[in-house]
C-alpha cells in the first residue's frame, strides 16, 4: 500500500515534469513558430535573443539588489517585461537591417542569421564575460510546494507553466482576435493583396519579427529560473526548437503546441526508463522518422495551389 502511494507520488511528479518540459519547449518554440510560421523566415539567431532576455534578467536582478533591495521579491515581473521589450527592440532592428533585405531567399536568411548569432554571442561575451552568471532569484521562486509528504512540486516549474499559459493565451488573442493579428494572417496568406487593401506589410513583417524575438526574450527570462546564463546558452536550445516547430507543421501555432507536447512527453517518459543520452537519441530519432514519413509535420493545412 505504501508502495502504491509512493508510486502515485512519483507518477504525479513525473507528470508534472513532463508538463514543465513541455512548457520549456513551447516557450522556446513560440517565438520561432511566429517568425517561421507567419513569415517563412529561419532565424538561426533565435537562441541568442533568448540569451539576451536571460542577461536582461541578470542585469535587472543586480540593479534591484543594489538600488532597491526591498523590491527584490517583485523584480522578476519587471524583468519579464523588460526582457520582452529589449529582445523585441533588437529584433525590430535586425529585421530592418537584415531580414527585410532577404525575403524570398529563405536559405540565405538562415545563413545570415547564423552569422548574426556568432556576432551576438561574441558581443555578449565581450560585455558579460565568458563565465556563466546567475540571476539572484526572489525567495518565492525557489524551492517547492509540498502537496503531500511525498509530492514536491517545484515552484519554478509552476511559474514556467503559468507564464507559458499566459503567453500562449495572449498570443492567440493577439493573432486571432485583434485587428493586428488579422493583418498578420492576411499578409502571410497573400502579401500582394494585403498591400492592395492598405495593409502596411513591411510594418507587419517588422512587428511580427519583433514580437517573435520578444517572446524569445521572455523565454530567456524564465529560463534563468531553471538553467544557466552564458553567452552560448541559447545555442543549446536552437535545434530542439526548430525540430519542435517543423514537427508541428510550420504554419500552425496549434501544431507547435501539439509537437512540443509530444516531444516533451516522449523525452520525459523515456528519460525515466533509460539513460538521458539514450532518451535524447530515441526522441530525436522518433521525430526524424516521423518527419521522413510525414514531411509536412503533424498539422498542415491543405492549401489549393
Amino acid at each position, binding site marked *: 500500500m505504501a508502495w502504491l502511494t509512493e508510486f502515485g507520488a512519483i507518477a504525479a511528479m513525473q507528470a508534472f515534469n513532463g508538463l514543465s518540459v513541455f512548457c520549456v519547449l513551447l516557450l522556446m518554440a513560440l517565438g520561432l513558430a511566429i517568425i517561421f510560421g507567419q513569415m517563412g523566415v529561419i532565424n538561426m539567431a533565435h537562441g541568442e535573443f533568448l540569451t539576451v532576455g536571460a542577461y536582461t534578467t541578470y542585469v535587472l536582478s543586480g540593479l534591484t539588489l543594489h538600488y532597491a533591495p526591498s523590491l527584490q521579491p517583485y523584480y522578476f515581473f519587471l524583468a519579464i517585461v523588460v526582457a520582452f521589450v529589449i529582445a523585441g527592440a533588437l529584433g525590430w532592428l535586425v529585421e530592418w537591417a537584415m531580414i527585410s533585405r532577404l525575403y524570398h531567399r529563405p536559405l540565405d536568411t538562415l545563413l545570415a542569421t547564423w552569422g548574426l548569432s556568432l556576432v551576438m554571442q561574441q558581443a555578449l561575451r565581450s560585455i558579460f564575460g565568458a563565465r556563466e552568471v546567475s540571476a539572484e532569484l526572489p525567495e518565492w521562486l525557489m524551492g517547492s510546494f509540498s502537496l503531500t509528504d511525498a509530492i514536491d512540486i517545484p515552484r519554478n516549474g509552476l511559474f514556467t507553466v503559468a507564464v507559458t499559459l499566459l503567453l500562449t493565451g495572449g498570443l492567440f488573442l493577439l493573432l486571432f482576435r485583434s485587428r493586428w493579428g488579422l493583418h498578420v494572417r492576411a499578409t502571410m496568406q497573400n502579401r500582394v493583396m494585403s498591400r492592395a487593401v492598405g495593409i502596411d506589410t513591411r510594418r507587419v513583417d517588422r512587428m511580427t519579427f519583433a514580437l517573435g524575438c520578444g517572446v524569445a526574450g521572455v523565454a530567456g527570462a524564465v529560463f534563468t529560473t531553471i538553467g544557466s546564463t552564458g553567452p552560448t546558452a541559447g545555442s543549446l536550445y536552437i535545434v530542439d526548437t526548430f525540430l519542435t516547430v*517543423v514537427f508541428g507543421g510550420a504554419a500552425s501555432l496549434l501544431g507547435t503546441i501539439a509537437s512540443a507536447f509530444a516531444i516533451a512527453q516522449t523525452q520525459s517518459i523515456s528519460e525515466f526508463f533509460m539513460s538521458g*543520452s539514450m532518451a535524447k537519441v530515441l526522441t530525436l530519432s522518433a521525430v526524424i522518422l516521423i*518527419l521522413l514519413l510525414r514531411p509536412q509535420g503533424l498539422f498542415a493545412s491543405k492549401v489549393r495551389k
Partner: protein
Amino acid sequence: MMTVLDKYLGGRQGTLGLLVLALLVLVVFPLVLDAFRLNMVGKYLTYAFVAVGLVLCWGYGGILSLGQGVFFGLGGYCMAMFLKLEASDPLSTKIQTTPGIPDFMDWNQITELPAMWQPFHSFGFTVAAVVGVPVVLAWVIGLALFKRRVGDVYFSIVTQAIALILTVLIVGQQGLTGGVNGITDLKTLLGWDIRTDQAKYLLYFANAGLLLGCIVLGKFILASKLGRLLLAMRDKEERVRFSGYDVSSFKVFVFCLAAAFSAIGGAMFTLQVGFMSPSFVGIVPSIEMVIFAAVGGRLSLLGAVYGTLLVNFGKTYFSESFPELWLYLMGGLFIVVVMYLPNGLAGVWAKHGPRLWAWRRARAAKAAALEVQP
C-alpha cells in the same frame, strides 16, 4: 583533346583556372611553406572536399544540407577505425587488460572487439566503407525526403537534426567510438608511419590530387546535361518534372555525390591529422563548411577551394592575433557575403576580374604603342 578539355573544364578560362589552382596547391604551397604549415593547408584542403560537394548540391542543386559534417565524420571514422586497429596490435597494447583491442575499449571494460569493428581489419573494406557508408546514409535520407518533396528549409533542418543525433550517439557509445575524445593516437597505414614529415608530404600530395580529381569530376558533371538539369530544377522544378524527369532521383544523386566528396575529405583528414573526433560531425562544423562554400562562391567549384583556404587562413591568423575579434569577423563575413555577395569571391572575380585583365592589357598595348612611336 583540346575540345574535350574545353567542353568539360569550362572552356579555356575554366581550364586555366584549374591549372592555376593545381599550380598553387601542388607547386607553390609545397615550395613556400614548411612542413608544419603545409600540413595545416592539407587539413584545410580536406574541408574543401566538403565545400566542393556543397557547390554541387547547394549551389547547383539548390539543396542546402546543414549536415555535411555527418558524411565528413563517417568517412573519417571509417578510416580511423582501420588505423586504430592497426595501432592496437597486441604487442603495443600489452599493458591493457585485454591486449589487442583499441585502448579506449579497454578503458570501457570491453574485452572483445565488437562485431562492428571486425571488418575494419581489411584495408579494402575500409576504402569501400569510407565512401560507401556515407553514401548509403545520404541515399536513405535523400530518398525519404526528396521522394516526398520535403522543402528546402525542412531539408536543412532535418539534416541538422541528423548531425545532432549522430553526435549524441557517438559521444554516448564511447566503448564503440571513443566518445568525446574520438579515435586518437593513430600511427601507421599498412605499416607506413603516417606521422613523419615525409609521410605528411606524401599525404598532402595525395590529398591535393584527390581534391583536384573531385573538382574535375564536378566539372564534368556540370558540363553534362545533368548539370543543366540541376540548374533547371533549382529554378523551375515543376517544369522539369513535367518534362518527364524524376526530379527526386537527380537530387538524391547529387546529394550522394556531395556526401561521397565529404567522406573522402574526412578520410584524408584522419590520415593527415592523425585522429577523428565527434567535433566534426556536429552542427557547428557543418554550417562552417557551408560558410566556406558561400565565401568562395556557391556556384564555383574552384571558388569553394579558395573560400575554404581563405576562411581558414583568416581563422588561424585572427584567432591567434585577435581572439576577441575573430567571431565578429566570422559572423560579419557571413552576413556580408550572404547579403551583398551571394556569389562569393567567384562572383566578385567574374565581375571585376575581366576588367582588371582588360585594363592591364590596355596598358600593355598602350606601352607597346608608345614604343613603336619614333
